[in-house]
């Protein structure tokens, strides 16, 4: 019984936290953009605009759902669902804490600790392209179709360098299990720098970060929905909650992407220097949980800041960076890492 009940409870908790975080992420994004542009941002609904997200969701639910006349109705409804499912299910393999002991039972703070965790995430992110491509095609609109095609080309191009930049970490950890990758990042380099992969694989980290921006369709890589060229891109013909689902999927995939970056490069739930204090095991578990949360929030804030400071690339520039800069760099990184491991430096 525990075998079934435990994952379900974990899934519900993670889903609840993710959904709440999505709605507040929208608000944070609007606030940050407002301060960057010397405005105040939403401040009418609730204190400091804190209830703005609630108002937004209610509005989306009550909006009329318009489907274009010649659209393929079934695929038109299926596409946002695919996007959301893919965005949320990635969190299943991400370890968000070490172990916690509640009422005498020890629980692992990860939903599914699978042997091929890294590959599962790559597989799920590569499926995200279906939501966008299908929505673009089924809307029967040329701008939507162009947006969908752009996104598939972009995601396929950046998946390559993303995957190859990860192999350096896999070589060092000798495992694809994400809990193992996090566990290896404990300890210190030279006794004071945390043994995180960002310090051991700086080039891999930068390539992975840039590819993540491209994979999540965020500025400066938001070509699939470039307003000036494509109206709204793949979701031009969506309205009401179906549009809301795409919005949800975008922010949810941002959260999972940040969590993935934290897990791989920023030490996951490892909180440095806590072993110098005499905390009880329960407090240590809580501190590790909050270390993970703080790191994820930090990466999310970085995502938002980048969006409002860097302009969009042109499409040919995007392809040039992907194939002629990122891919050779990631291959070079892989060869150098393999060589260093061979001569026992790493």
């Amino acid at each position: 019984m525990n075998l079934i009940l435990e994952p379900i409870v974990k899934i519900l908790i993670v889903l609840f936290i993710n959904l709440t975080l999505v709605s507040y992420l929208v608000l944070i994004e609007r606030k940050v953009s407002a301060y960057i542009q010397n405005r105040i941002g939403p401040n009418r609904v609730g204190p400091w605009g804190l209830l703005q997200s609630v108002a937004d969701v209610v509005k989306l639910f009550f909006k009329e759902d318009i489907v274009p006349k010649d659209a393929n109705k079934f695929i038109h409804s299926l596409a946002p669902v695919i996007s959301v499912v893919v965005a949320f299910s990635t969190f299943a393999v991400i370890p968000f804490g070490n172990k916690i002991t509640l009422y005498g039972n020890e629980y692992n703070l990860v939903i599914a600790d699978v042997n091929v965790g890294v590959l599962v995430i790559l597989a799920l992110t590569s499926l995200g392209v279906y939501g966008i491509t299908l929505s673009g095609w089924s809307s029967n609109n040329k701008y939507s179709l162009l947006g969908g095609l752009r996104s598939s080309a972009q995601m396929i191009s950046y998946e390559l360098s993303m995957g190859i930049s990860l192999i350096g970490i896999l070589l060092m950890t000798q495992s694809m299990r994400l809990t193992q990758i996090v566990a290896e990042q404990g300890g210190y380099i030279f006794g004071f720098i945390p043994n995180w992969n960002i310090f051991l694989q700086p080039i891999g980290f930068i390539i992975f970060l840039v590819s993540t921006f491209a994979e999540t369709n965020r500025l400066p890589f938001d070509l699939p929905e470039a307003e000036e060229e494509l109206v709204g891109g793949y979701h031009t013909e969506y309205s009401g909650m179906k549009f809301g689902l795409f919005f949800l999927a975008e922010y949810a995939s941002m959260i999972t992407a940040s969590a993935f970056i934290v897990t791989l490069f920023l030490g996951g739930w490892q909180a440095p220097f806590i072993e110098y204090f005499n905390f009880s095991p329960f407090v240590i578990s809580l501190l590790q949980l909050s270390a993970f949360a703080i790191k994820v929030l930090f990466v999310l804030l970085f995502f938002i800041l980048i969006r409002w400071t860097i302009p969009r690339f042109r499409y040919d520039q995007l392809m040039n960076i992907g194939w002629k800069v990122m891919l050779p760099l990631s291959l070079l990184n892989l060869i150098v890492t393999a060589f260093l491991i061979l001569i026992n430096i790493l």
Partner: protein
Amino acid sequence: MTFEEIVFWSLVLVSGFAALMVVISRSPIASALYLILNFFCLAGLYLTLNAQFIAVVHIIVYAGAIMVLFLFVIMLLNLQDETKLRERMNWKSFAAIALSILFLIELFYIFIIKTPTPKIPIHPSSKEIGTVEYLGKILFTEFLFPFELTSILLIAAIIGAVVLAKKKFELTD
């Protein structure tokens, strides 16, 4: 029925249905989508066989890359439903149906009536077989030569694709 059996049979039924719909459905996009569903069921079957690596790679390569390109092509060609291609039933199709049924009966006779499949006991080390570590070890020791041959084949395919893409076509009226 045990839990495994329920999972197995539901995967089998769904994948069979999806495979059938790939052939039957008139719209090429629907066929492609059913094929993706079929790939997922196959990946699930691999998982029940404890082959996690194969299952995930199957999804990455087939569902995540190849089928995206298929969809790409179908969308760009803007294929209509294949109503124009509706085939007539003639003696060839009747013969094909009759032969297929005969073949099915033969298979049924050989594998189920004559030699029922014996229950193979689970090998003690079968838990290890599907893991990445095991596959990696075996690929780079016992099967190193075929593995390298495959990579040469892939490189040849990549170079071929680049040459074809670089080729400038003369437009003639």
